[in-house]
């Protein structure tokens, strides 16, 4: 027990082990499908068909994926700094105000590309502020970030219900939502992007915020691996003691990391509000903030892993909706189980198969000396 785990080649560490964890999560999910009396194989076929079989399905898959890229990046950003931000849900919810207000003020006077920058700024700002408070409390007052972000999710939910029911609702309307934006508050669809592949997105709300999500992923990569700030964040995540010793101002980094994380989560609000519903509704986030945890764990907190992980969850959301038409026993809540299983196996139990694989590689290495030496 002198060394916790043996050294493995990089492709095993970053490729094989996460893959095995994922496969196990889906196998257990398959058992649940079996338990309710349906065929897991047929469910999987329906899932893929529903998510990728036709243009509109792909449009929806990518629409959902957009949400999860933002929230996944948010969780990953905090992970790098050794912080666990469970508050993505609340940050995105509150950021809805930052999107809705510019749209409500500007939509009748200017085209969408004037509104859009203000909405991005509003979303990022509100999300950052909502994440900054827990960050500040952790940095200055020592309260645990996990607990405070959970509490802030609930506070956000109450705040938004109050705002939507008592403040933002137009007079004479019963539904707790803002008025519907006109053209100036609506993002254009990306039908041309899929059109280039000969696909018709039909009614799918696949819109410009997808490209913004890709840009955000690139920016996160630059910040984390190519800037001084990113270096400081990662140092703090790996070893707060080393960071302190190196003269990195811990409090400042905690607050900045949480604000960046909150801003990313906040930008998720653009997609449903400006891209799809064209108004702010109750519960528009609908769990995307929590999916971000699974996405970040699956993507190993790297943008290049988060984008495919987000698309996988987009596929589950869209394909899951299709399955429920064909198999009434399986509703969308199946995704919640899969999400939980992915978090369990890719997150909490990520090292469960490592000892077995390590000893397997050690045996292989002993059998063929020289071939399994770790790459220099």
């Amino acid at each position, binding site marked *: 027990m002198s060394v916790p785990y043996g050294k493995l080649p990089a492709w095993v560490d970053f490729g094989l082990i996460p893959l095995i964890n994922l496969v196990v999560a889906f196998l257990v999910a398959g058992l649940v499908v079996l338990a309710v009396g349906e065929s897991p194989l047929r469910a999987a076929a329906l899932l893929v068909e529903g998510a990728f079989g036709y243009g509109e399905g792909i449009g929806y898959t990518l629409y959902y994926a957009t949400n999860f890229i933002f929230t996944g990046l948010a969780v990953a950003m905090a992970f790098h700094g050794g912080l666990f931000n469970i508050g993505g849900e609340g940050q995105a919810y509150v950021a809805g105000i930052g999107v809705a207000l510019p749209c409500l003020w500007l939509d009748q006077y200017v085209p969408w590309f004037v509104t859009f920058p203000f909405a991005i700024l509003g979303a990022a700002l509100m999300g950052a502020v909502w994440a900054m408070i827990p960050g500040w409390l952790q940095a200055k007052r020592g309260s645990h970030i996990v607990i405070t972000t959970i509490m802030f999710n609930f506070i956000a939910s109450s705040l938004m219900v109050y705002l939507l029911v008592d403040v933002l609702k137009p007079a004479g309307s019963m539904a707790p939502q803002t008025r519907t934006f006109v053209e100036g508050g609506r993002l254009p669809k990306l039908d041309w992007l899929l059109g280039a592949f000969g696909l018709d997105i039909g009614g799918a709300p696949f819109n410009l915020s997808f490209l913004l999500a890709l840009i955000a992923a690139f920016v996160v990569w630059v910040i984390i691996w190519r800037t001084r700030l990113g270096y400081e964040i990662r140092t703090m995540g790996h070893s707060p003691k080393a960071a302190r010793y190196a003269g990195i101002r811990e409090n400042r980094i905690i607050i900045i990391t949480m604000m960046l994380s909150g801003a990313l989560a906040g930008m998720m609000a653009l997609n449903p509000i400006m891209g799809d519903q064209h108004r702010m509704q109750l519960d528009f986030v609908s769990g995307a903030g929590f999916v971000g945890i699974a996405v970040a764990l699956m993507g190993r907190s790297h943008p290049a892993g988060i984008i495919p992980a987000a698309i996988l969850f987009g596929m589950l959301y869209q394909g899951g909706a299709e399955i429920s038409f064909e198999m009434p026993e399986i509703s969308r809540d199946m995704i919640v*189980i899969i999400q*939980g299983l992915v978090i369990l196996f890719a997150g*909490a139990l990520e090292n469960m198969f490592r000892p077995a694989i390590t000893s397997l590689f050690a045996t292989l290495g002993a059998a063929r000396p020289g071939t399994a030496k770790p790459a220099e």
Partner: protein
Amino acid sequence: MEYFEALIVILQSTVRVSVPLILAALAGLYSERAGIFDIGLEGKMLAAAFAAGAVAGITQNALLGLTAAMAVSVALALVHGFASITQRGNQIVSGVAINFIAAGATVILGQAWFHQGGQTPRLGEGGRFVTHELPFAAEIAGIPVLGPIYSNLLSGHFLLTYLAFALVPATWWVLYRTRFGLRLRAVGENPGAVDTAGISVTWLRYRAVICCGLLCGIAGAYLSMAMTGGFVKGMTAGKGFIALAALIFAKWKPVNVMFACLLFGFLDAMSIRLQGNPLPLIGQVPAQFMQALPYILTVILLAGFIGKAIPPRAGGVPYVKER
């Protein structure tokens, strides 16, 4: 007199809504004092409520329902224990996972087994817990002040309610007056010292999460078999997190836990009561503010503005025997 009666009614519903909070918060107390953070209280409670509703719905036997609830909750607690004790995984991540698995599985299985939109069958007489009148409740009711307090506030609750309140001193006694309790607290503060004394950290922590599972199971059973007559999807509705907040608010101490839960339960009861009724002096208070108040109070406490909540020192840190 009118205000007094209104107060009794509010306090009565305070007791009713506080019971699952007390049970879940005490559950969390066992786990967290042993150094295992548990944000999966919500999920365990939900799964237990479902198991209770399902089993009691089929067998119409309340005791079987309660047993099933405790069994399911302990099973989930053991998953959490396996991840965070044996596998030394991240305890927060594991707790989040359990919440999701419970939230999804209760709906999917409920729909598949009972076809009632995620509900379990309505429980009949034998399938649910009934309220019990304390002796002489009817006779004493006529006495002013004392009568209503005894017959309306103290009498007429479920056995589980009395059990929950009895568990508060019991937990205090276990924690501070038994060898197991001493070791439990020690393992949450300094597992290395416990290990050096030749006591198994692993087994001690497993016992702590099992205690946590048992109590969460009772909390879940209370929700679906006592408070209501059957399981409804998502019926915990954040109670697990309120309990977590109460646990922190109580600074991980059993008697404080009871008062914190009663306070949060009182706020809950008030928020229902205040809908549409303005308060004197303050005016109309939005119901949402009352609902958010437990969370806001906990944040303020955590920020160190009302005393300081210091968690068990080894909390959240997996124990590695030697390296």
